[in-house]
Structures are given as C-alpha cells and as structure tokens.
C-alpha cells in the first residue's frame, strides 16, 4: 500500500483511448487512475499493462483534448470500485457510475470492486424456480427460471425492445416485494433508451439504470455492464432481492471490445473480435445465478441484435455457448404480423427441465410442450415440401399438420400485448392439439395424449 497518491506528467504517447505513461513506480494492474487534462478536463482510466516503469492506461471517456506536456495522471492504488447501497434504486448513472439525474451521489462506506470473483460452482443453488413471463412461447416452450441467463436474439427492425419491455411488465417476478430491475443501456440510441426507460418507470418497481448511449465514450461501454452487475449482485445477495438485469445491446458491447483491442494492437480473431471475447463475455453472463443459503437471485436478459441476421456471427455464437438457451426472433413471423415473433424451433431454455412439472407449473407441461414442438416442427418441414409439390400433393394427414402449424403461429405464438398465465398457455396449446386430433378429446383424461 502506498502512503500517498502519486501522480505523473510523463506521458509518452496518446493513441485513441490509450495512454502510455513512463517512469511510474509500482503501478498495479487494474488500478484506477485519474487523468487531469488541460482546461480542467478530468477522466478516469485503468491500468492495462505494465512493463518495467512504463504503464499502459485505458481511458474511460473521450481522450480528445488531452496533451502530452500538461496532462497529469494520478494513481489511486486501488482497483475500480463503486459505492453500493439500496439508495441507488430509482437512480440513473453513466457507465462510470456518475449520476445522470442531476442529484448528488449518495454516501456509503460500502464499496464493491466492479470485477467480481467467480461464484464457486458448489455454492450455486440449482435454478429451478419458474418465472411466469406471461408469454406462451416462453412460458410453455422455453421456460425461464430464476438465476438463468436467457438472451433475446433479435435482428435489426424486429421488436426486441417491445418484447423485453413486455417481459418486464408481465413477469411474475415483478409481483414480488423483493423485486428490482437493473437496466444497462449499451450504445443505445436516445429513442430506444427513452422507450426502455418509460417501460421501466411505468412498472413502479425499484430500478437502477446504467446508461451509456450511442454517442458516449466507447471504453465506458465496457465498464457499464460490470457496474450494473455489481449493483445487481449487491441487491440480490446482500439484500435478498430478485433482480432482473436487462442489458441492451450486447453487440455494441462487443464492438467496443473490438475497438479497444485493436487500439491495443492485439491479435484479432474471428471478424476482428479479440480471441478472449468468450472469456470476457463469460465474465459478465456467468454473474447470473442463485447462491445456496441466500434468498436473492440475479436473472439476466441480454438483448443481442444479430448482425446480418446471422446466428453464427461470433457475438450470438459465443453468447449461445455461455448462456442457458436463447429466445430467437424471426423476421418471417414479424412480417406476418405475429407478435411476439418468437421462432420456437431454434429457441431453447436449458434450465426448463428443472423449472417445470408437478408443483412448479403443471404435471403435463413437458408432454404438452413436446407435442406442440414436434408437430410444429413437422408442419414447418412440410411447408418446404408444399412449396415444391403443392398442397394437393400431400396426404390428408400432412395437410392437417400444415394447418396446425399455421394455427399454432396465429393462436399460440401470437398473443398481442396480452398476458397469459401458464395454465392459460398450456390450455391454449392443448386445445390446439385436440382440434387437430393430436390428442384425443377424451374429457375424462384430458392430459393423456392419444397414441400417435
């Protein structure tokens, strides 16, 4: 521990968001620095690399206006920490945790580093508490549970923010006393941001917003989700709240990562994204979860807008490898006026099995879901065949299956702005299955599927 803060005026190079400082004694990796430019400009930064007495600093903010001769760099001897308190609820901050709502920052002695340590796998509680989102395509077929990280894979022009807001408004979590939303806006336009904020404010539930809009410094975009998650962890594991973390849009985060990596002259990986992007994304996504013996939970809903609608693009690809499933939106369904346009075939919830069944949702949940899924998949496959040989060329059974898949999209997936309880969702599914003769009408045993 150094006794006094020490500062330097020995900058040797400024390159994009990076600063090189020379003749520094005992710098720490990850240490926070304060940069005082000419004309009163003050910025934060972080030590990225140290080589003997030369230090490489990443600046959180716009480096325009810094110079080599007059700019001072002060080393703090500490890693980046933020003050945590329940007083953060209802507040709006920027990526470096400076208030954006013209109110002063609260005082608390409790500081938390923004880089979290990993949750010990044996300390994790198994995620198995069902969250009712009110959306049939999610509740019945891709069930969300507390502590899960379930991204929304969208494409440009699809209503991903409407869906995210829908989930916020209608999720069963929001009924609980101990609920809170942490909203992290990454590189959003003002328009999108205003939409989200309105949705969150009309919830009348406690929330925190960490905002880094499209015109704000890129490096701060790397910090913002970490700040948000640090608060989420505090609210969940210290204060016992069920926290829903909504992050939009992860593509902007990854692009920021690429930009900084390129400035550092690191070796580019796929599509120019750095090779460590998997680990970096994991250090965010893996902070979702529940811990044994603690009542709160961190559930994460990141929004990923797939560039070029390509699910194999590195960002959705790496995300899919880390998260516990994905909700995929479809341009085709959207064009046909179906809302929410969730394509259930590539969508998946890996934790569904533990969240459903007797005493959680309903005993026949798995069975109904599987039947809906299989028959819809079959119908979709037949559509390709129909395009070649025409509807009349198909046997009657297959024609009925085609009708089923259309009805499934229009009656089951499509629900407009309404909310369906899980029982309503399952019943809607069952009645479709009955109508098309997949399960028998036998009223005495409604949950028994007919022999295929």
């Amino acid at each position: 521990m150094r006794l006094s803060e020490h500062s330097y005026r020995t900058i040797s190079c400024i390159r994009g968001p990076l600063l090189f400082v020379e003749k520094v004694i005992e710098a720490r990796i990850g240490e926070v620095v304060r940069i005082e430019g000419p004309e009163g400009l003050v910025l934060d930064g972080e030590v990225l690399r140290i080589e003997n007495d030369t230090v490489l600093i990443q600046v959180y903010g716009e480096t325009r206006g810094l110079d080599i001769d007059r700019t001072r760099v002060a080393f703090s001897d500490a890693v980046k920490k933020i003050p945590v308190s329940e007083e953060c609820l209802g507040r709006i901050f920027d990526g470096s945790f400076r208030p954006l709502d013209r109110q002063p920052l609260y005082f608390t002695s409790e500081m938390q580093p923004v880089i979290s340590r990993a949750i010990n796998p044996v300390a994790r509680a198994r995620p198995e508490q069902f969250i009712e989102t009110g959306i049939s395509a999610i509740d019945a077929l891709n069930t969300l549970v507390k502590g899960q990280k379930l991204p929304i894979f969208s494409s440009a022009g699809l209503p991903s923010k409407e869906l995210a807001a829908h989930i916020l408004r209608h999720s069963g979590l929001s009924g609980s006393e101990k609920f809170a939303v942490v909203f992290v806006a990454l590189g959003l336009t003002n328009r999108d941001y205003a939409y989200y904020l309105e949705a969150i404010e009309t919830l009348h539930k406690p929330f925190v917003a960490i905002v880094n809009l499209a015109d704000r410094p890129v490096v701060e975009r790397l910090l913002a989700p970490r700040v948000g998650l640090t608060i989420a962890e505090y609210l969940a594991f210290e204060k016992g709240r069920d926290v829903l973390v909504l992050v939009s849009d992860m593509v902007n985060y990854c692009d920021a990562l690429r930009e900084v990596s390129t400035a550092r002259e690191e070796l580019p990986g796929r599509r120019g994204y750095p090779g460590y992007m998997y680990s970096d994304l994991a250090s965010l996504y893996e902070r979702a979860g529940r811990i044994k013996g603690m009542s709160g939970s961190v559930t994460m809903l990141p929004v990923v807008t797939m560039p070029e609608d390509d699910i194999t693009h590195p960002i959705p690809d790496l995300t899919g490898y880390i998260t516990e499933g994905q909700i995929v939106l479809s341009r085709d369904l959207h064009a046909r006026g179906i809302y929410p346009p969730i394509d259930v075939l590539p969508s998946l919830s890996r934790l569904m099995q533990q969240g459903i069944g007797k005493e959680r949702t309903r005993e026949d949940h798995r069975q109904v879901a599987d039947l809906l899924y299989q028959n819809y998949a079959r119908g979709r496959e037949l559509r390709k065949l129909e395009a070649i040989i025409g509807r009349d060329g198909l046997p009657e059974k297959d024609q009925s299956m085609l009708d089923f898949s259309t009805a499934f999209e229009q009656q089951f997936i499509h629900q407009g702005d309404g909310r369906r309880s899980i029982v309503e969702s399952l019943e809607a599914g069952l009645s479709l299955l009955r109508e098309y003769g997949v399960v028998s009408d036998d009223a005495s045993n409604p949950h028994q599927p007919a022999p295929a």
Partner: protein
Amino acid sequence: MKGKIIAISGVTVTAAIEGLRLYDRVRVGERRLVGEVVRLEPGTAIIQIYEESRGLAVGEPVESAGLPLSVQLGPGLLGTMFDGLQRPLQALLDQSGPFIGSGIEPSTLAAERIWSFVPLKNVGDDIDVGEAIGTVQEGSLCHVIPATGSGRLTRIEAGDYRIDQPVARFEQGGELFLQQRWPVRQSRPVRTKLAPTEPLVTGQRCLDFLFPMVKGGAAIFPGGFGTGKTVLEQSIAKFADVDIVVYVGCGERGNEMAELLDEFMVLDDPYRGGKLMERTIVLANTSNMPVAAREASIYTAIAMGEYYRDMGYDVLLLADSISRWAEALREISSSLEEMPGEEGYPTYLGSRLSAYLERAGVVETVDGKTGSLSMVLAVSPPGGDFTEPVTQCCLRVSGAFYMLDASLAHSRHFPAVNWNQSYSLYDRVTDPAFDQREGADWSRLRDRCRKILQQEAELREVAEIVGREGLQDQDRLLMLVAENLRERFLCQNAYSEDAFCPPEKTLALCRHIIDAFDAVSARIEAGELLETVLAEGDHALV
C-alpha cells in the same frame, strides 16, 4: 528462489528471478497467487498466473521452491469436486465464501482422514517404483497404493494412517506414504500399450449400436450450441460401464455444474451400486474462472485418471469442452506474443492435442496389471462449422466421431447424433465382443440398420420431388421403417426411464423393428398392398 515482478500484462507476469526451470510452479505477489513458468530468458522468467491478477503491482515478490506444478494423488479423490488446479471447491467455499478468493491453497486430500492400510508386501521385499505395496478401501473401491521409490523394505505395517504418515520405510532411507505428488504435464509411465478389445457400453443406443466406443479409445463429439453436448456428456458419465469417471467442466456453465453435482449425489451407480458420485471425480473450471487454470485443468484431470488406471481400473475421462481449452491456449499464446497459426491458434495446437489424446489407451501398468483410460471429448466449433482447427486436429487422432446435428436438435431428435456422417473406427474391434455377448445378430442387424438409414436418405431426395405417395410400396415401407428406427430406436430421452439402455434391450428393440420390416416386406413381395398390410395393425410398425 526469490525475485521481483518487473512487468504485468493480463495474467502474464515477467519476473526478475534466477534458477527456475521451465514449468516450475511459482507463487506471485503478496497474495501468493499460483503461477507456472512458461518461458525463460537470462535473468527473467515469464509466468502464467492461474488466478485473478488484478491488483498485482510491479515490485511485488515472486517465490518458487523449484518444483513443477503438480497434482496430489492418493485415497480420497473420488467423490470430490475440484477446480482446474485441484483445489477442492468445498474447502474453497469454507475458506472464502461463495465467491472464489485468490491465493488460498486448501489441501487437495483431507489431511485428517484416517485410512486403514493393508500391506501387500513384507519386510525384506525388494520394491520397484510403481509396484503396489498395499491397499486401502476408498468407498466401494479397492485403492492400490503404488511405491514412489525403490529399495528393500525395512518396515511396512498394517494399521490406520493419515495420508501424511509413513506406512513403509526403505533400508537405505526414504519413506512411503498413502499420497504422492505428480507433475501435471507428465504422463505416468506404463510397461506397454495394448490394443483395445473390449467395448465401452455407454447406455446410449445410437452410440453402442451404430458407433461403438472401446475401453481405451478416444471419441469426440462436436456440435454447435443447443445440440445437446452437455446432456450427452452427462448421460455417458452416468451410465458408462467403467470403474471411474473423471468429468472436466472446462470453461462451461456454472449452473450446469451445480446441476450435475446435485444429480450425481442422488443417482445410483448402475453397475456397482452406491451413489454415482462415489465413482466420479469432478473438475469444474467454469467459463468465468481464470483462463490459464482452464488450460491446466485437462492435465490435472488426466493425471488423476492415469493414477486410477495404474491400479488396473477402467477409467473414463469426459471433457466439456476441449474447444474452451484450445481457446485458453490461444489466449495464453497471444499474450506471450507467439506467432499465430490458423484462426489465431498457436501452431502447436495440433501436436498438443495429439499428445493429449494419445494418453488414452489400454495399458499394461508398471505393476503388471491391465488398466484402461478412455476419453470422450466434446468440441464446440464456432458457428457450428466443423472445418475449424480444433475439430480437425481432434479428428486426426480420435477413433470415433459423433457429429451432433443442429437440424436434428431443432426437431428435438436427441441425442442429435447424425447417423450418416458420424463414424467409429472401433466397430471391427467391438463386433466380435458384442456378437459373443449378445448373439451373432448384433453386427448383422447393425449393418442392416445402417443400410436402411442410408437408403432412406437417398429416397428422401426422390420423395421431395415426386411426393411420398409417388414411391413404390417397398420404398414407402423402407421409409416407414427408417422413421421407426429414428424415432423409436435412435431417439432416447435423457430425462426418462429410457435414459439408460443396456445392450440386450438395444438389440431387442432393433430386432423388433427389423423383424416387422421383413414380415411386411415379404407380404408385399407376395402381391399384397402396403396399405392393406399396415391397416391390420398386428405388427411393430406404426
């Protein structure tokens, strides 16, 4: 040896220190983080740190005892869950709470536990390194204690010991303990490698029947996300016919590891009774844990696997997934500023992987026993593209390739093993064994099953043009049979009673369908119409 940090970049630290050897273990900084020497230059050593490096300062001390990074081997490994550096996660939890701290080093094996030692040798016997000197009972397993030195015994006594108490002594000095240390990156010696002969039953119909695995073999299954790698890997861990399972969660999800642990604690071992966890060692280095430890984790795992193999057991090593290991290797390589090869992976990726996969095999141990180590590795190719370097490198050395197909997974056909593109080079080895155990039908039916699926693929293309109704009765029958095979035979629900299928049941199921095929086929041959025959409904096809 002591020195000082002079440069830090991420998890790579340069220290001014003398006298170290490559791959020596070092403690770095005031927090005493664990690291390993990865490069040496005059007066300086480049060190890879296995823990979170944030907060480390230039000038902090670096220390080493001049010993390589090693694992602790001995009774008590089974049923425990470790991180990539073999630190027991439960002990980490007790010491640092639910979030993993750094610089903590709890003992791998419980030091205070008492083991009842039964000697196999007597005073005056001449012992060689690796020879069994006695046994202790580890759960339901007889744990053989190998000698770590050679010489004539002057003392060896039955009794109750802790792992740090000597059980035997040599004439010329030197003592033997229940535990030993072994360098992580070094394979354990064997007398000879033998050719694999015995099938490894996984309980998964599509694998056992179509693409069998052998004890001592190496298999890979690549698949994009959502194709069911982890579920398949865990099913194999549960039902594989082996004595010991080492499961490495390499850079994967924390919640999945929690789930696996919960399940293994309550599930029964299908072969030997007792709980599954009693035959399992779990290594969890989740995706948010330090990247360098992820690289080390598969070596830590295999060192433990080889240790049990040397007792004459059949060991199965499962890794989920080897791609994360390769990525860790890439990250480390790029931080060392090495010249990159394909897709940024270091050029030694291929040789490292080959060397690793070659550690699988059936061996005659130093002690003259026969043991085996098998490997089943999941691969996560980016974008589901199998032409990427990790999949390709694995293909060169593995004997079985189970291709997980995204389109099968999307239509909820699980396990999503593609039957047209997967292969196993072991079927010629396992055929005689299965034919002998289950009756000569095994290989005959298997070949027919493969042929039907192959023919179906061809017929499908035709059917897409002319419609299924436009096909001949025999062809339509074949498609119906193939559909039956796919949906009622190859599909296997991992969450039901059907999750485990013993070979005799596998064979019976297949025979049932093929027999019905033959019967219906014969009647069509005799001039009856397919519709008429199917309408009767007294056959196995639906």
